[in-house]
């Protein structure tokens, strides 16, 4: 277990994240051009969706998919309410910022999921291809929950932007590529996989390194520019993932999911969104402070999950599942 955790820390992708974080902290001028970073993000989602779909097609749509999907939807929708109560209780965030932050923690991070699957592959634990679909399902409910919490209806400006907002919530580029690729992977199955195996396989590993290098830069620069973060918020950004992961592991065990699926479910629950949620919050809750929710999700929770969370959730899963 300790060995596996250390192995994670020494995986190339994680080290590239650390390199980016170091470079950002030292104020190096290193940057991954933004159009390339955007494409890398889309490409990672294309691969995750496609591989998941192809694997799901190979193994058939099992009951596990329904169980995992239902659990994911529930966690994503319920989490923001709980997180909101906790965040408000600190007394340092206004109502809208607390609601927007809660949305981020209910929603999920694609790259954390990708790192989780790579970790499981490295320690040779199996998981269902349908977990990619669960990832896609968990993006949106948290955003809807935050809108309910914030009573977004009452905001005058939002009425005008409703069409843009709904498109952003349900049809943001990330979700479309993820779900679309899943369906394409499921339709083309093995034959499609045979044609794209290099593209979605070995290339994926490298692209993940490059993207994590960029994430490291972005995360550390964001932290450097956010000196006003209250210590309670930082504690939240570490403790909340732990709690969420524990809840997800427990529920997964109760539902009879496998160790691999349960670990990924914990990773998803613990992860915080930094693409879909901020995009929706900018439109729906413009008065919420993006400096807060992005610093927490991208600057604290993302590195924590990547470096420590993933192996920890897996280790905890093994305890629960007796694996």
């Amino acid at each position, binding site marked *: 277990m300790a060995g596996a955790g250390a192995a994670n820390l020494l995986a190339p992708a994680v080290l590239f994240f650390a390199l980016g974080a170091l470079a950002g902290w030292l104020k190096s001028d290193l940057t991954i051009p*933004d159009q*390339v970073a955007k494409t*890398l993000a889309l490409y990672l989602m294309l691969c995750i969706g496609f591989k998941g779909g192809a694997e799901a097609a190979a193994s058939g749509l099992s009951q596990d998919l329904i169980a995992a999907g239902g659990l994911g939807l529930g966690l994503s929708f319920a989490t923001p309410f709980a997180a909101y109560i906790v965040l408000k209780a600190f007394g340092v965030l206004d109502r809208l910022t607390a609601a927007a932050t809660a949305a981020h923690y209910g929603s999920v991070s694609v790259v954390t999921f990708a790192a989780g699957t790579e970790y499981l592959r490295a320690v040779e634990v199996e998981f269902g291809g349908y977990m990619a679909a669960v990832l896609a399902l968990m993006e949106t409910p948290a955003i809807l929950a935050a809108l309910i919490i914030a009573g977004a209806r009452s905001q005058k400006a939002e009425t005008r932007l409703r069409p843009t907002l709904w498109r952003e919530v349900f049809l943001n580029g990330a979700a479309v590529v993820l779900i679309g690729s899943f369906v394409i992977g499921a339709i083309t199955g093995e034959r499609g996989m045979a044609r794209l195996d290099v593209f979605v396989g070995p290339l994926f590993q490298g692209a993940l390194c490059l993207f994590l290098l960029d994430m490291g*830069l972005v995360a550390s*620069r*964001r932290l450097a520019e956010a000196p006003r973060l209250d210590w309670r918020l930082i504690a939240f950004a570490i403790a909340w993932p732990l709690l969420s992961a524990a809840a997800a592991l427990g529920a997964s065990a109760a539902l009879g999911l496998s160790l691999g699926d349960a670990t990924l479910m914990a990773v998803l629950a613990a992860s915080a969104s930094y693409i879909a949620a*901020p995009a929706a919050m*900018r439109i729906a809750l413009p008065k919420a402070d*993006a400096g807060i929710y992005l610093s927490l999700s991208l600057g604290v929770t993302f590195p924590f999950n990547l470096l420590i969370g993933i192996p920890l959730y897996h280790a905890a899963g093994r305890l629960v599942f007796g694996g």
Partner: protein
Amino acid sequence: MDLTARVKLEIFVEAHAVGEIERMLEDAGFKGLSVFASLEGAGSHGAWRQTGVDEAGMRLIIAIGSEVSAERALAWLSDYFQSYPGVAAASDVRVLRADRF
């Protein structure tokens, strides 16, 4: 040269607002506009930087039109900026082929 006075609006807004503001400018009477991507910036909502990871980015919309159109657009924007980040500035320009604006 036969130049005519017109007003140029420079509107800095978040990327998600571009479609809506384009429609508004058309309604206000502008016959054309151009949109540019900004790399980084700062304002009352803090500093930001285009990274490709977390930021939607700001856009600069340049629209040249009549005084009346500009008035209408600024009225709309003045309301819009109550809720959303961004700034706008108007200035005087001289154009060729006045009927095009």
